[in-house]
């Protein structure tokens, strides 16, 4: 190193790495340990900092940003409580495989382990909450570690990476400026599928009489190209396709080959097709317990093909016949090529008969509901989401939906139709109430012209309601569409189904006036109490170029159907309230084994 080599402080190095990684926005909250970075932020213009009101929201905002753009979301928080507050967001990103780099401040190296003010063992706490984490003790390692963090976060199965930065390291100077990396000594995710496994998969698929293609969030993570390839492959085969909650938008919902979402609150036709199929192709999904129901009765007569970038997802819950490890886009490209190269004809007669069976299931119209139309009638939550979808669709605007967690989330998944990927952001794996509003914030930052709506419940929204203030500060016209039934609806539904209707602590007492709440946060508050008010409220909400809370007062007793009760099999679905057995007898399919499941 020459004597006049350029040196930068650790804080300046952080900013330089962010710039080299193409980061243009970060979500954060300042504090003592990260003041040097905030000082460096102040003196530059290429990275925009969004000041959230709680660190959990910073991570969810970065998740919304990442999920709607495919880029890495970046978070900056201080030591101690800053880092611990971020943990829920990190686990959320880990469960849903969202690429996040979270920079946490730390007390200076000589104080680590001394129970210093705002000290926490951040790498210890976040070890099981992240894909990987680092503690940088030497400023000469800083640039390399940061670039490595971005590489690890976005490649393979994406996930959150924490880089813990002691304050003295941020002041120390180094000439090691680093550069973006595309390799790693020990971490080498496999992206190209094995050709032999692909041909085995095609042989099974060509011979199928009752096939199903089941695609998940891995398609979304592999980028829009993977969605196009999935669509091509599904059309090439003529086979039915279903998406997981995480995969909605990976395949156009309006397409006749689409059976809707599968799983606990999925459609009758999707779940029965999964149960009755003879060959199942899973691309980018992980046989989650919300999908499989009772494992020993999951799709009992099928040969299964599982394509996943993460080898640990294969044979974890469900033993499969063919495993294809690779990136979803690369795998679908290989599947398409192998399908075309294989001259074996499909059994068109059997496939036609399979479609007739599926059409029979479809004819049950499992998502139907009865909305009374007389003026003054109560609003059904399903109808509210359906009208929201229809009016957004008419508006022709690029619409992004986020949700909180609960009944409203499932109704959003069932009644809002997604034609494209990256338009649907929901907390699938962790089920984090409070996810939707900050996530919508991140989406709106990434898509200033987009119509961004958080479909919420009145309970969930209060978990990160402070972010209304962030919306006001940055003039983000996010719409919060609350399906207000004055209950933690999903908790109440389970209490009704499994606990004799004893609604222990699930009533949303002492709710705020959401209209006034919106106004006090410099936004617009709207309310619809009856069905005749609904369309006007939705139209006004969309038209207003400011943050809006629309308080939609819905039928308090409505439950989310169809439903596979916990511990039941796909063919034991409950289609609606008329399917429910008398409460004291318990429900068909809810075994004692099922009761203990979440």
């Amino acid at each position, binding site marked *: 190193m020459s004597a006049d080599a350029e040196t930068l402080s650790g804080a300046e190095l952080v900013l330089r790495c962010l710039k080299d990684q193409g980061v243009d926005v970060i979500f954060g909250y300042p504090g003592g340990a990260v003041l040097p970075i905030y000082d460096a932020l102040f003196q530059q213009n290429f990275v925009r900092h969004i000041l959230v009101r709680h660190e959990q929201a910073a991570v969810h905002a970065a998740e919304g940003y990442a999920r709607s753009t495919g880029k890495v979301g970046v978070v900056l928080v201080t030591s101690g409580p800053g880092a611990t507050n971020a943990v829920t967001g990190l686990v959320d990103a880990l469960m849903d495989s969202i690429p996040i780099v979270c920079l946490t401040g730390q007390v200076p190296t000589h104080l680590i382990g001394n129970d210093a003010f705002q000290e926490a063992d951040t790498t210890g706490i976040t070890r099981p909450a992240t894909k990987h984490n680092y503690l940088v003790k030497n400023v000469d390692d800083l640039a390399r570690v940061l670039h490595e963090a971005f590489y*690890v976060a976005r490649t393979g199965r994406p996930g959150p990476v924490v880089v813990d930065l002691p304050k003295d390291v941020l002041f120390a100077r180094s000439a090691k400026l680093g550069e973006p990396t595309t390799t790693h000594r020990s971490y080498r995710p496999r992206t190209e599928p094995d050709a032999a496994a692909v041909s085995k998969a095609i042989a099974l698929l060509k011979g199928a009489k009752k096939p199903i293609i089941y695609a998940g969030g891995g398609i979304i993570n592999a980028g829009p190209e993977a969605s196009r390839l999935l669509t091509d492959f599904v059309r090439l085969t003529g086979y039915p396709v279903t998406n997981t909650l995480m995969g909605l938008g990976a395949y156009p919902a309006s397409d006749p080959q689409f059976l809707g979402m599968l799983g606990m609150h999925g459609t009758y036709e999707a779940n029965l097709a999964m149960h009755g199929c003879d060959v199942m192709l899973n691309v980018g999904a992980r046989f989650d317990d919300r999908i499989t129901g009772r494992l020993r009765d999951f799709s009992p007569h099928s040969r299964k093909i599982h394509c996943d970038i993460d080898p640990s997802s294969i044979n974890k819950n469900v033993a499969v016949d063919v495993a294809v490890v690779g990136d979803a886009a690369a795998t679908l490209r290989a599947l398409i090529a192998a399908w075309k190269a294989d001259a074996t004809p499909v059994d068109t007669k059997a496939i036609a008969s399979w479609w007739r069976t599926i059409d029979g299931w479809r004819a049950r119209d499992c998502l139907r509901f009865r909305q009374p139309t007389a003026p003054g009638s109560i609003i059904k939550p399903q109808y509210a989401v359906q009208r929201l979808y229809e009016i957004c669709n008419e508006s022709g605007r690029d619409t992004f939906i986020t949700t909180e967690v609960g009944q409203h989330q499932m109704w959003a998944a069932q009644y809002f139709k997604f034609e494209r990927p990256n338009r649907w952001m929901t907390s699938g794996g962790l089920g984090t109430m409070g996810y939707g509003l900050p996530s919508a914030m991140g989406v709106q930052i990434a898509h200033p012209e987009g119509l961004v709506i958080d479909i919420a419940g009145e309970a969930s929204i209060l978990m990160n309601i402070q972010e209304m203030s962030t919306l006001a500060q940055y003039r983000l016209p996010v719409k919060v569409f609350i399906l207000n039934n004055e209950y933690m609806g999903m908790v109440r539904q389970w209490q009704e189904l499994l606990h004799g209707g004893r609604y222990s602590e699930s009533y949303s007492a002492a709710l705020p006036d959401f209209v006034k709440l919106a106004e006090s946060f410099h936004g617009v508050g709207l309310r619809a109490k009856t069905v005749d008010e609904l369309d006007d409220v939705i139209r006004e909400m969309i038209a207003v170029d400011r943050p809006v809370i629309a308080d939609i007062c819905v039928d308090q007793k409505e439950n989310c159907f169809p439903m596979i009760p916990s511990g039941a099999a796909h063919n034991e679905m409950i289609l609606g309230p008329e399917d429910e057995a008398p409460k004291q007898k318990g429900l068909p399919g809810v075994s004692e084994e099922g009761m203990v499941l979440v």
Partner: protein
Amino acid sequence: MPFETALRRHVISVLVENEPGVLARVIGLFSGRGYNIDSLTVAEVDAEKNLSRITVVTSGTAMVIEQIKAQLDRLVPVYRVVDLTEDGPHVARELALIKVAGTGDPRVEALRLADVFRARVVDATTESFVFEMTGAPEKIEAFVALMRPLGLIELARTGVAAIARGAAGLS
């Protein structure tokens, strides 16, 4: 495919980057996902390349063993995961230090048995011995069982280190 429920014991070698926290990652993985650790050893094996080797003996169903290997391989600082039990013949050895106290006949008998088992005396007083013994875990267990009635008062074991037979190397 049927769900196999029989438990099997596997010796797994994991080559890792020798960096702070790497052992915690491995142990946290086992505890967080409810896997068994029957024995675990770790030490640096290549200072130049900064590599450590972890040998873990675990038990589970075939599906769980496969999961354990896949989950270990997923950790960022892990270079290689090798299932020695599955890959063929291997040598597994453990070192134990065994303290036996007593006088008279039991003391003589302990020393005689130590000789039979090729344990070395590494410390002696007029009323105690410390034996050092290397061998397969079963051999150590057999010796320890014999020492119990003869005045065994303390036992320290390293856990298993293992390596595949033959000319091929791991890294």
